[in-house]
């Protein structure tokens, strides 16, 4: 199989995830939606369900507008619209306490749909000695939720240790996915034939596809890419950072302008895959540890400089020339960071605020192009 044909498969799924999921649904897959990268999707998978991260594919806000004010971020509205419109074939949803907006959207979904609903409450503060135990409690709660919605649940809860075998197989699969994605994206920065858009498609598909199939395909892709000759790209090296991607067209704009995204630090990018789960020992502690130690989201706290230190590390590692900070309008956690980020980071930063899902107008496109010219 050629590299381009594998990439095309990912592209098709990124373009039309709904058709892909409908096919899975018809095949009898039991889909569980989840909203935040802190939700350990491996737990959902281990119970025989198919985890799908909702990234907000809706471009209209007809249903969400009747629940949320105009000053709600377009990412949250798109996620709510995806759920209320029932375009994704699922009977269950797992929310997390990502931010104030998502916490209220969780309530709105619970009150306005018949989806089986669960709140996975991640500690907002990750540096407390109390966080570890609390995170482990949340993972156990998620296990209990998965038990309850399992078709073969007879009302009796198993001892958590009885899931160790099931979990160890799953953890292996998900660890393989994470390491392959990291290797792949690392390799990609030295291969000009693979575009920014291609990598975005892979990452998008990673949240939607059957994980065994996905692991196989990215494994094949990685092997094929390893055979290619690497080049020292003379493209502008950009780090994308911010919230979830609200405008997938950015990748094409950057491709056309001759820029390489050397690290996609968006919440829908590589950042969620930067966690390593220890495969030996207590699996609950291992998942908890990986979530507490992964690069933090702007909505979590691990010291006042945690986000900036991490970005500085990325800049050094990837020799980045500029940062595009992509944030949905009204996104408090990220927008609060911007002024100090400009002071702390010593390379140019472009703030790109998106007000409507997948809508970037001419002036913003010109701003991106002008930014790339100046770095």
């Amino acid at each position, binding site marked *: 199989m050629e590299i381009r044909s594998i990439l095309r498969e990912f592209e098709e799924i990124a373009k039309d995830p709904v058709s892909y999921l409908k096919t899975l649904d018809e095949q009898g897959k039991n889909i569980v939606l989840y909203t935040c990268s802190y939700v350990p999707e491996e737990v959902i998978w281990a119970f025989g369900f198919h985890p799908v991260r909702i990234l907000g594919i809706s471009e209209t806000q007809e249903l969400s507008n*009747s*629940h*949320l*004010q105009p*000053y*709600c971020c377009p990412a949250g509205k798109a996620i709510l619209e995806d759920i209320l419109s029932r375009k994704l074939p699922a009977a269950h949803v797992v929310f997390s*306490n990502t*931010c*104030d*907006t998502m*916490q*209220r*959207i*969780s*309530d*709105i979904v*619970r*009150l*306005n749909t018949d989806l089986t609903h669960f*709140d996975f*409450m991640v*500690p*907002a*503060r990750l540096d*407390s*000695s*109390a*966080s570890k*135990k*609390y995170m482990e*409690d949340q993972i156990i*709660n998620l296990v209990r939720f998965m038990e309850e919605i399992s078709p073969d649940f007879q009302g009796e809860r198993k001892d958590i240790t009885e899931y160790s075998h099931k979990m160890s197989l799953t953890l292996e699969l998900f660890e393989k996915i994470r390491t392959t994605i990291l290797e792949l994206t690392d390799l990609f920065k030295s291969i000009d034939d693979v575009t920014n858009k291609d990598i975005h498609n892979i990452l998008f598909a990673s949240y939607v596809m059957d994980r065994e199939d996905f692991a196989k395909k990215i494994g094949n892709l990685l092997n094929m890419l390893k055979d290619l000759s690497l080049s020292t790209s003379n493209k502008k090296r950009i780090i994308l950072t911010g919230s979830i991607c609200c405008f997938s067209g950015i990748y094409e704009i950057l491709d056309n302008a001759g820029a390489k995204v050397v690290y996609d630090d968006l919440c829908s990018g590589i950042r969620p895959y930067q966690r390593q789960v220890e495969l030996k020992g207590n699996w609950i502690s291992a998942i908890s540890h990986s979530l507490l130690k992964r690069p933090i989201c*702007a*909505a979590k*706290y691990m010291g*006042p*400089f945690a986000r900036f230190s991490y970005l500085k590390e990325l800049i050094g590692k990837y020799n980045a020339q500029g940062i595009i900070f992509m944030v949905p*309008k*009204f996104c*408090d*956690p990220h*927008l*609060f*960071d*911007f*002024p*100090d980020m*400009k002071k702390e980071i010593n390379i140019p930063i472009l703030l790109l*605020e998106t007000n409507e899902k997948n809508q970037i107008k001419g002036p913003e496109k010109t701003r991106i192009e002008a930014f790339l010219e100046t770095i």
Partner: protein
Amino acid sequence: MDIQYRKEPIKMKSKMKEIMTNYFLEAFDAKNRGKKVAWITSGGPVEPLIAMDVIPIYPENHGAMIGASKMGDKLVSSAESLGYSCDLCSYATADIACSRGEKGPIGHLPQPDMLICCNNICSTVVKWYEIQARYFDVPLFILDTPMCHKDFTEEIKEYVQKQFDELFLFLENVCGKKMDFDTLEKVGRLSIEAQRLWQKILDTTVHSPAPMSAFDAFFHLALIVTLRGTDVCVNYYRELLDEMEDRVKNGICAVPGEKYRILWDNLPIWYKTKWLSEKFAERDVCLVADTYTSAWCSSLKYIDEDDFLGSIATAYIRIYLNQGIDIMAEEVIKMIDKYRVHGLVMHSNRSCKPYSFGQYDIQRIVREKTGLPILIIEADMLDQRSFSDAQIESRIDAFCEILGS
């Protein structure tokens, strides 16, 4: 005998001003007195600070003062010039502007020696305090109180209780002395007493016509936020309660022609409290209660007076805002019954997303269960630029017509 109802200013208002002036004077002089100053969020646990003789300063209280002084737009604009989006919480951005040299109603706040942030009211405060921790280069303590969407659980309690232990250690480190837990228990009792008194004061408006309005409560709230856990606070509210009871006896009320009684939801629109008060009063409408000022006694039922330390975590988790919107809607309905109101006014507050998102659903639930008319006003608690006098007045007119129909 028919009582001739009349309106008179609340006498205790001048005492409140005097207490707050002394409080700020003491805070500004803290260094000379060898005292530490802590900035703390409005829902944060003040009792451990009082027990350690630390002066608590509330930037949100300062925000209210900025709003009431109509300085919000200027300060928010100034923060915008520093790079802070106009869509962010205006309390936060106005405070940041003041910290960076802009003058507020009292100049600026006394500089902090430490920051204490509790996210039971919102997640915004975590980002806000992070920024201030970087700017002032002072230690920051985050107390993470997970939201109880549906249920309060033992694991949440255990998590927060452990953080309280960390908070005590944090305070001991910054202050260089040990926490006296007997003193903390005493402070806890005073805090509970103040909350009970505050609840009783708010409950005097069950009487019709109400001896005060929610607009008065917005003003007299200051001490339950800033100085609960002190004798000053308890004594003040005792006197205020006496005055309210006297007003009921003597026919002194907020709106002498009170015809309709209204419940207010969300923070006040600080720069328009007088204007709104007059607009409603002109239409014989009194705002008799609100979900905001009552939040400072909303967890009273969870505090054990004989075990303050053991119940402090529960008390700070289970506050009005830190729960699912269906539970909030139930609270609103209870208040509607208790205060016998004829309608609900909801302030859709651009600056406060956890308070405002979900209001449309609360509106639907309340309407279905009570059938009461509900008005939503779009504004901002601090930034005057989000307020349209003409539009809001015409909406109030239409709402009051429905009340009368």
